């Protein structure tokens, strides 16, 4: 009886461990983790037993085999996997191999009346579904930054070498091209300012650079049309792009499509600048200025610079 945690992203694995520790205490079961290296770090982050195996380069077949072996070893009831693209394809593969339920992209997990209940977005991000699964084990993939990791503590736990048969890989990797880094750290930014269709041409995004500077280097984001359709920026914020949770999110010329709003929901304060009074974005903002971004942003830059 246990909860097994795995993510190839170490920080995400620690976030999952924090949740696993909480759930395991309520369910009175053990916490296991699977890793390639640094098992003691996983113990310090809350794992009681760590399965270690040098997993190496990602391959669906190999990782699947390692996880299936880990599930067997740890007799897991719940398997928490980090919701990266790789994590999701592995989760679905092991769920199919075991013929069990899998709940994907969850951002909340609770144990209530003997049931594990998760929350996840559905219907294009416009709704939140609460789901449970009756299979044992059940696989759950968890979105990054859904849970805070624990403060690491010197602890003792058991480290177990995992051996498994690595099957042949069916997909050959020919080339890996790193994507250019946009320079915008949307994941960790305290303040994000974001552009929507209210901007008429790419050069006008300079306004946001000025605002960013006035806000001590706020990260700059945008909506999907600005990035995917117009190609003005690398990454967009929204359900299909980056999900963000800064302290302050300022939307500039953004109408408030549900897919965008779903990606900024966890922001502490949302401010919107949009000249259309009826734009949906105002209804999901804390503060709104009904006005043209071309006038409001320079004025805001001026005010922010004066005070500091």
């Amino acid at each position, binding site marked *: 009886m246990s909860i097994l945690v795995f993510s190839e992203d170490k920080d995400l694995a620690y976030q999952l461990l924090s949740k696993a520790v909480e759930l395991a205490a309520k369910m009175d079961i053990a916490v296991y983790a699977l890793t390639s290296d640094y098992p003691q770090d996983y113990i310090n982050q809350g794992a009681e037993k760590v399965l270690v195996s040098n997993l190496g380069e990602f391959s669906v077949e190999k990782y699947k085999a390692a996880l299936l072996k880990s599930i067997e070893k740890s007799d897991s009831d719940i398997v928490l996997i980090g919701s990266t693209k790789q994590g999701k*394809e592995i989760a679905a593969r092991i769920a199919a191999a075991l013929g069990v339920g899998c709940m994907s992209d969850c951002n909340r997990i609770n144990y209530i009346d003997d049931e594990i209940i998760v929350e996840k977005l559905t219907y294009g991000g416009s709704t939140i579904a609460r789901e449970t699964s009756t299979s044992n084990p059940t696989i759950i993939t968890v979105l990054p930054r859904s849970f805070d990791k624990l403060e690491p503590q010197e602890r003792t736990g058991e480290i177990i070498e995992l051996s498994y048969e690595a099957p042949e890989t069916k997909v050959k990797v020919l080339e890996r091209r790193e994507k250019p880094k946009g320079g915008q750290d949307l994941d960790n930014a305290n303040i994000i300012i974001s552009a929507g269709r209210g901007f008429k041409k790419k050069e006008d995004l300079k306004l946001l650079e000025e605002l960013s500077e006035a806000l001590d280097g706020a990260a700059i984001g945008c909506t999907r049309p600005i990035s995917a359709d117009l190609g003005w920026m690398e990454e967009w914020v929204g359900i299909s792009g980056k999900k963000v949770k800064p302290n302050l999110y300022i939307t500039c010329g953004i109408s408030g499509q549900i897919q965008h709003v779903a990606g900024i929901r966890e922001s502490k304060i949302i401010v919107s600048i949009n000249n259309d009074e009826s734009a949906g974005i105002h209804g999901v903002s804390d503060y709104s200025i009904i006005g043209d971004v071309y006038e409001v942003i320079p004025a805001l830059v001026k005010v922010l610079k004066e*005070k500091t």
Partner: protein
Amino acid sequence: MRQLVLLKDIPDLTEITIDNERRPKIEGVKTKISDLDKRALEAAIQAKDKVGGEIAVLSMGDEKTKTALLEALAMGADSAYMIIEQMLRGVDANATSIVLEAAVRKIGDYDVVICGEMSLDSLSSQIGPRLAELLDIPQITYVKEFELSEGKVKAVRDLETADMVAEASLPAVITVVREINEPRIPSLMNIMKAKRKPQTIWSLADLGLSSEDIEKISYVKIKDVKAPLVVRKQIKIEADSVEEAAKKLAAAIREEGVL
């Protein structure tokens, strides 16, 4: 080259309204092919233009599915297979993939299975990998570009920090991302012709399955679905000039302690 495209028809997301208790109103909303699946079909049509062959689409659902699938035939699919059973609308990814596996095996002759990386209603990204597992064939997920050739597929995968070029032998499962293409809008002429293309409709029994069995292996249950509670202040900053508005806003966000 025989391509099999998996399509899911889902409620038209733009038609879903939210009631006073924050519940989405789904009943009565017409269904449409999920956007990413439509792009999977578009990719198959473009591949067919290069390498020839045939495209069959496969879907499971209820009566509404039959209407939604006509769009696929109008876009350019050559034939359609549908498993129609009322209970199939609500089953989980485990049950879905087992029904689809049975259908794919019954269709038998295919080189590649293509679908969207997720459906836009359940957002769960499971069906492609699950089918690859059940059919024991290679999977290439999150594909934004691919090329079919004799016995092989070469694809560019869109991962978080890198693009990965990968190759697998056929048959294989491919799941596509939004970036792969813009799906075509079928002409009126092709819409008229669509109805005359071959359509095969199966029940679960035709696949050797029963609703009771499928119900039993549909493990994930939805407890409720609600629109999130909006707990924003919704304060509109009133001012006589842009400068004054900017000042008030700056003061407000300083007050919030988020600067």
